[in-house]
């Protein structure tokens, strides 16, 4: 069939086709890069930029999703003023910041010395050890949060068992650790403990990631600095304090920024640990969770959009503050 067709086709067309192809080839250098980067922009326009603008539009409206798109009602900044004065929103922001600090600060306080130990004292086994610390970071937050809910449960939880057995440890008649550890099981679901529990899980999940960041920055610090310090008689902790820590400053800025951005968006861990409810008295409800519940449980998409933009402003503000505080002054 095809041989018949090509025999029928006049040769002129064939030549013209080739010149066109050649022309395209020559100009390909010009249009190809635009074509190559376009998939990103197409996808972003549809699933990134448009949703963003739409959510901004939505945040100024009252809308019952069941009534269809035409039922939107312009309410101005009412959603924003309502959110900002809403006690539950304030609680959720307080919870978010509490958890962000309680999980975030220890992450860095532990990760930096840990990375230093790994950098100085571990040679052959370093990759294995780094792998162990890094494993929580790559595993499913849902799966691991579920496991933690069993470990933290009141009556059979492994963590309570460890704590109370330390608290009830007796030497003769006295319990030497009773001042530090509880002697009875703690109900981690009680409001005063929920945030601690969530913060621990978040800390556990991200401490290895921060360690890896700091470790990779330490590997770029010139060795001569340490050699010179050793010649001058500096002890190891002095080298750590006067060389390693100052040289890590740019990485600290980067890592702290990531922690701020990540912890303020905390959603999955508190969502799973509190069973999607926010816990008793909403003690474990974060701002992102508050947004989710407002939209998908209560069906108030306008207010939820306003919440998301307020939260975005908060993240932007804190990131900017961190930039002022820790950012390089050049």
């Amino acid at each position, binding site marked *: 069939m095809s041989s018949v067709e090509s025999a029928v086709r006049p040769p002129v067309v064939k030549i013209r086709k080739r010149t066109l192809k050649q022309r395209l080839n020559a100009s390909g250098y010009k249009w190809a890069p635009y074509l190559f980067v376009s*998939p990103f922009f197409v996808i972003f326009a549809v699933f990134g930029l448009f949703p963003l603008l739409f959510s901004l539009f939505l945040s100024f409206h009252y809308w019952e999703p069941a009534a269809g798109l035409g039922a939107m009602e312009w309410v101005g900044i009412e959603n924003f003023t309502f959110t900002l004065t809403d006690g539950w929103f304030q609680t959720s922001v307080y919870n978010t910041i509490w958890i962000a600090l309680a999980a975030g600060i220890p992450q860095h306080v532990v990760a930096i010395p840990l990375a230093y130990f790994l950098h100085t004292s571990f040679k052959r086994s370093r990759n294995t050890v780094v792998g162990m610390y890094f494993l929580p970071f790559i595993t499913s937050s849902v799966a691991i949060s579920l496991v933690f809910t069993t470990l933290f449960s009141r009556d059979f939880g492994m963590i309570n068992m460890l704590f109370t057995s330390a608290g009830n440890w007796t030497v003769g008649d006295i319990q030497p650790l009773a001042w530090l550890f509880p002697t009875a099981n703690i109900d981690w679901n009680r409001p005063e403990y929920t945030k601690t529990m969530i913060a621990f899980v978040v800390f556990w999940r991200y401490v290895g990631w921060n360690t890896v960041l700091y470790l990779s920055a330490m590997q770029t610090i010139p060795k001569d600095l340490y050699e010179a310090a050793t010649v001058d008689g500096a002890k190891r902790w002095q080298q750590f304090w006067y060389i390693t820590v100052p040289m890590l400053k740019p990485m600290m800025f980067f890592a702290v920024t990531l922690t701020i951005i990540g912890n303020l968006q905390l959603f999955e861990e508190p969502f799973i640990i509190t069973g999607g409810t926010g816990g008793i008295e909403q003690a474990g409800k974060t701002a992102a969770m508050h947004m989710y519940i407002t939209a998908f449980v209560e069906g108030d998409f306008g207010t939820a959009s306003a919440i998301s933009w307020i939260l975005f402003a908060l993240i932007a503000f804190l990131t900017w503050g961190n930039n002022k505080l820790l950012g390089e002054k050049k």
Partner: protein
Amino acid sequence: MNKLTKSHIIAYFIVGMGSIIMLAPFYFMFVFATHTNSSILSVPPPVWFGGEFINNVGILLDALPYFWHNIGLSFYVALITTILNLFFCSLAGYAFAMFEFKGRNLMFILIMGTMLLPPFLGMIPTALIMSKLEWMNQPRALYIPMACGAMGIFMMRQFISSAIPKELIEAARMDGCNEFAIYWRVVVPLITPAFGTLGLITFIGQWNNFMGPLVVMNDMKMFTVPLALRALQGTGQVPWGAICAGAAIAVVPLMILFVMTSRKLIDGLTAGAVKG
């Protein structure tokens, strides 16, 4: 012996204790996955493996009749996302690394800037778009929005500009190779190491993705694994053994992948950080 070894011992001790804390939850996940509920709920809880794993999987399948389908779907979505990302990100990375074109830097900055946008901002409208497109409960609702990420473009640009000499591209161009063929026949074979790293990161990210499926999947049959596990919660008597068995099934593939590739994966994830 001397002072150095003493501080080494302290370091080993602290780091060793820390790694026990890091690994303990995984250990108990596996232990609980092999015990009945009543044995987990006894005091003290079990610390060694039992023989109830198959039973727990049975309970899991009773509560989540589509669990194997859910795993297959997770795998399918993660794989498609990975393939699309490798293709689109490397194509864009190649353009940014090897072409001079108008607006290149601006476009690159714009793309990098999208990394700063928090994912929850788009959560509500994305759910609305998906229902308008009638993509609810469709795998494409998960992989199309994730098909080309800024981080992948960044990684690919870095790798291509350091691994491939511009002369090679020019030589191919002079020989009359068209632009896509240069990408396909010259660039792609040379960037397989970067494909490996980006592929891993994308696959793991999509396998663990929870927020995406949460708003677009409401049919239990179309749940991905994290959603399916979550559905076990709040079903009256909580089946802890089955939950741990499911968690283990969700985590083990990643653990195996990680053990085989940890160096590569960590290097890839921190590639942008060290230079920044």
